[in-house]
Structure formats: structure tokens, C-alpha cells
């Protein structure tokens, strides 16, 4: 299995305080990798390193080597805007733009300079289908995206990312703000999506990690404690800390 993204010797500082303490991790292509761990363990912080969203926060220093298909994403020559087209992101809270569903999905295409209406129409439909929300919105494409339910909004956001056709999709607890039914729909969607995309998902929900992910990485206090095949990690964890966390002895 080839690794599409790798991170080595990751250190991250908020001001002088070290939040990530140096670890190595890789992500298999066309697989779902779940990042689990208690709140504040650094998993979301690490996720935001992978598309350089941490650049937006003042006073953050990141060291280590982050590579997407062998290219250093923190190299001065790397165009952040292009990187983010390759590494998409879905946030914890559904955050569609206050525009119509259609315009939400078309936003990324217009950024790419695609102007042909037919092409846009086609990709909008495709993306919404892949995100399993097409049937619910197809008659209301001109309707304000904010008028839909939270679960539908989140799938619209997923479709919006898919339309840009990234290689990797980062997801920061994408279902934690949603009801169980929406949650299940999104989980099904993700499993479908891994045929075409590599997905890295941060989740609080260990059942979710075990249901959908191929690989799991367990974080604690800014360290990567253990990572590996999800089945192995859940059934036969190598580290005592992992075992304790999975069995609810802390966290």
C-alpha cells in the first residue's frame, strides 16, 4: 500500500508551549485513517497541519517534514492555495456559504477557473450524488444551503469539497454536531468515497472509528501513542495506554 501523505518528526508550538511532541505517521492511499484520542490531545491540531490551516493562527510554529506524494508541503515553493485544492477539509460544524446549494458546490470550480456551465452542472450533480445528498436537494438547487438540516448541510459541505477533486480529504469530527441518522448516512458516504479519495478523519467516537476506518492512530497529550490497522489496534493494542483508553479507563 502506498502512502500518499507522510509526516515525520512533527513538532508544533503555540508560542513557546509545545503542543505536538514529535512523531512520525503515514497515510495509506484510498484508505480511511481515523485519529482518535481524548479532547485536547492534539489530533485536530495535527490534522490542520496537513492542509496548512494552522498558518491562519498567529504564533504557531511547526517543524518536521510533511509530504504529499513526496512533495514537501511546507517548502517555501509550495503554493498553499494549490495545496488546499489537493487536500480538502470538512469541518466539525457544517459551514455552507450563505448561498444556494448550487453556488456552494460551484464555488470551488469557479476558483479553478472553470466557466463552462455544462461542465459545472455536471460536476455539481456528480459531487452531490457522491455525497449522498443529491436526492434530497436536486429539486431545490437554488435554495439557500442554510435552509437545510444540519446533516444535509454537512453532506453539502462534503460535496463542496469533492467538487474540487482533491486527493486527500481531512475531516475534523464531521458528525459530532449531527443526529444519529445523519451520522449513519455520512459514515456510509465516507466508505463509498474511499474508492476515489484518501480520508483522514478525527473522531471522538470510537465506534465510528472502528466501523469505518482501515487504520487508526491514537493520540494522547500531543504524542502519537500507537497506530496501525484498525482491527489490530482495537482488538490487540500493543500499548497499555491504548488499551486503557479503548476500555474507557480514562478520557
Amino acid at each position, binding site marked *: 500500500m502506498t502512502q500518499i501523505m507522510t509526516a515525520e518528526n512533527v513538532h508544533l508550538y503555540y508560542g513557546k508551549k509545545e503542543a505536538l511532541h514529535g512523531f512520525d505517521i503515514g497515510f495509506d492511499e484510498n484508505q480511511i485513517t481515523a485519529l482518535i484520542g481524548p479532547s485536547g490531545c492534539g489530533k485536530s491540531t495535527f490534522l490542520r497541519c496537513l*492542509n496548512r*490551516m494552522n498558518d*491562519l493562527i498567529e504564533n504557531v510554529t511547526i517543524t518536521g517534514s510533511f509530504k504529499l506524494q513526496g512533495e514537501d508541503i511546507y517548502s517555501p515553493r509550495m503554493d498553499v*492555495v*494549490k*495545496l*488546499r*485544492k489537493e487536500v*480538502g*477539509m470538512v*469541518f466539525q*460544524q457544517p*459551514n*455552507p*456559504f*450563505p*448561498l*444556494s446549494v448550487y453556488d456552494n458546490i460551484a*464555488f*470551488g470550480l*469557479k*476558483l*479553478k477557473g472553470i466557466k463552462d456551465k455544462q461542465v459545472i452542472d455536471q460536476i455539481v450533480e456528480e459531487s452531490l450524488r457522491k455525497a449522498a445528498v443529491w436526492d434530497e436537494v436536486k429539486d431545490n438547487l437554488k435554495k*439557500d444551503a442554510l435552509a437545510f438540516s444540519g446533516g444535509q448541510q454537512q453532506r453539502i*459541505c462534503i460535496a*463542496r*469539497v469533492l467538487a*474540487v477533486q482533491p486527493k486527500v480529504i481531512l475531516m475534523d469530527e464531521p458528525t459530532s454536531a449531527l443526529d444519529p441518522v445523519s451520522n449513519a448516512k455520512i459514515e456510509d458516504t465516507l466508505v463509498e468515497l474511499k474508492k476515489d479519495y484518501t480520508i483522514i478523519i478525527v473522531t471522538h467516537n470510537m465506534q465510528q472509528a472502528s466501523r469505518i476506518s482501515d487504520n487508526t492512530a491514537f493520540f494522547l497529550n500531543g504524542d502519537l501513542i500507537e497506530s496501525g490497522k484498525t482491527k489490530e489496534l482495537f482488538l490487540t493494542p500493543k500499548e497499555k495506554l491504548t488499551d486503557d483508553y479503548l476500555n474507557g479507563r480514562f478520557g
Partner: protein
Amino acid sequence: MDDIKQKLLSKSKQTTEDRRGKILCYACLSLIIVLIVSILYFIINRGTATFTQNYLSLTQFLTGKQWNPGHHQIGALPMIVTSFLVTILAAILATPFAIGVAIFMTEYAPRKGTKALRAVIELLVGIPSVVYGYIGLMVVVPLVRKLIGGTGFGILAGTLVLFVMILPTVISLTADSLKAIPVSYRQAALALGATKWQAIYKIVLRAALPGILTAIIFGMTRAFGEALAVQMVIGNAVLMPEGLGTPTATLTSQLTSQMGNTVLGTVSNNALWSLALVLLLMSLVFNLLIRVITREGVIK
């Protein structure tokens, strides 16, 4: 038992205080309502007297170009036109600058810079209009004279002074509306591979459009109602403006310059009240516009 009954049935000190507070609030409110209603009544009553008591024609008032109330000529069109022209031109001039500065304040400037800028802008709001007018008279009018000839008094000078005067209002209201746009929109746009400018231009400005329009209309309300500073640079001749540099008058400038020269109850006096009525109605229109825009939310 009787003791307790007695205690519960008599009013406690707190209850009395509560009631007193309530009465005080209602009293203040009633006073304000009476004040507003009487002002409105007075303006409407006096303002319509020109037409109901002096039997002058409303059509003449709205379309006539001759203003000489002493001789029963009350054509207010030149003032209405000039008022709208300076207001709209000032707003058109101020809007791009205001949006630019507001974007800088909310998106680009470091926090300290924003604070300093805000302080300066608030200071500008606080400068009395007579000071703006004085600067207008001493600096802007000669400049206009040099640029386009004539006396220098007129619409261009008025526009430039109003532009500076409404700029701080429009900037701070625009900045507030930009700041109210959730960070999550910006993050979503950036995460999709938008540049910072694309995120601002395509998402933030669009989402903030109702707020920005409201800011512009607030600026226009201020420009429309500004009297003193405009009076000092507009030329004060009730003539149809022939160009940007010919002396003319606005509704407000005519009011301030003439109100000392008329006697209550005369036609001249009533005609001025009619001008005041137009101002009142226009501010009502501006207010309604703001309400419609804020209620409609995002304009598609």
C-alpha cells in the same frame, strides 16, 4: 398564624420598590412619546399649512424652480435635486473607500493597528460639523475654484465635505458587518483553495452585503440631514445646479440660512416648514429602507 397572614398580605418593601421602578420607566417613556408625537405634529401641521392655509400648489412646490416665498413662489425642486445629488455623490465616493478601509481593518491589519484605526475613526465622527465646514470653506472651496473655475461653491465642494464627514460612519458600520461574518465561512473558502482575497471578495463581502448597504444608507441619512457644513460651502443660491461648481442650495442649507429671517405664520415661514417636512419624510424613507434590507437578510 395571624402573624404570618398579616406578613404575607402587606406589601413588602421590595414589592413597592419594584412597582416604583416600573412606574418611573413608564413615566420616562410617556414623556419621550409625547415629545416625539408633538414634534411630528408640529412639523406636519406647519409643513402642510403652505398648501392647506396659503393655498399654494403642491405640484409647484415639487416641480417649480422659482423660490421666493415672499412672492408666493415656492418651487423647491432645485433644493430637492441638490440635496439628493450631494447625498448620492458623497455616498458613491465614500463607498469604495469605506469598504477598502473596513476590509483592511477586519481582514489584514494586526489587532493593534485595528484598534488605533478605530480610535482615529471614532475621533473623526466626533468632530463638530462646523469644523468640517470651516475646512471646506478654507481648503475645499478654493481647490474646487482652481480645478473647475467659477466661485468654487456648489455641489462638488458640498460632496467633498460630506464625503469626509460620512466616511467614518460608513467605515465603522461596514467594518462591524464584516466582523459579524462567521470565521467559519472564511475557513471554508480558504480550505477549498481560495486565496484570501477570493474569500473576502466572493464570500465575506457577499454575505455582508445587507450590512454594507445599511452602512451606506446610514451615511446617506447623515449626508442628507447635514446642514451647517453644507451651508458653508454650497453657495446658498436657490438655483438649479448647472454644473458641479455653480452655487446652489440644499433643503437643509436653505433652512439654516433662512430660519432667522421669517416670522411664524407667514408664507415664507410655512414654506420653510414644508422643506423641513420633506427632510422628515426622507429620513423616514431611509429608515424604512434600512428595515427592509435588514429584514430581507442576504440579497440574492
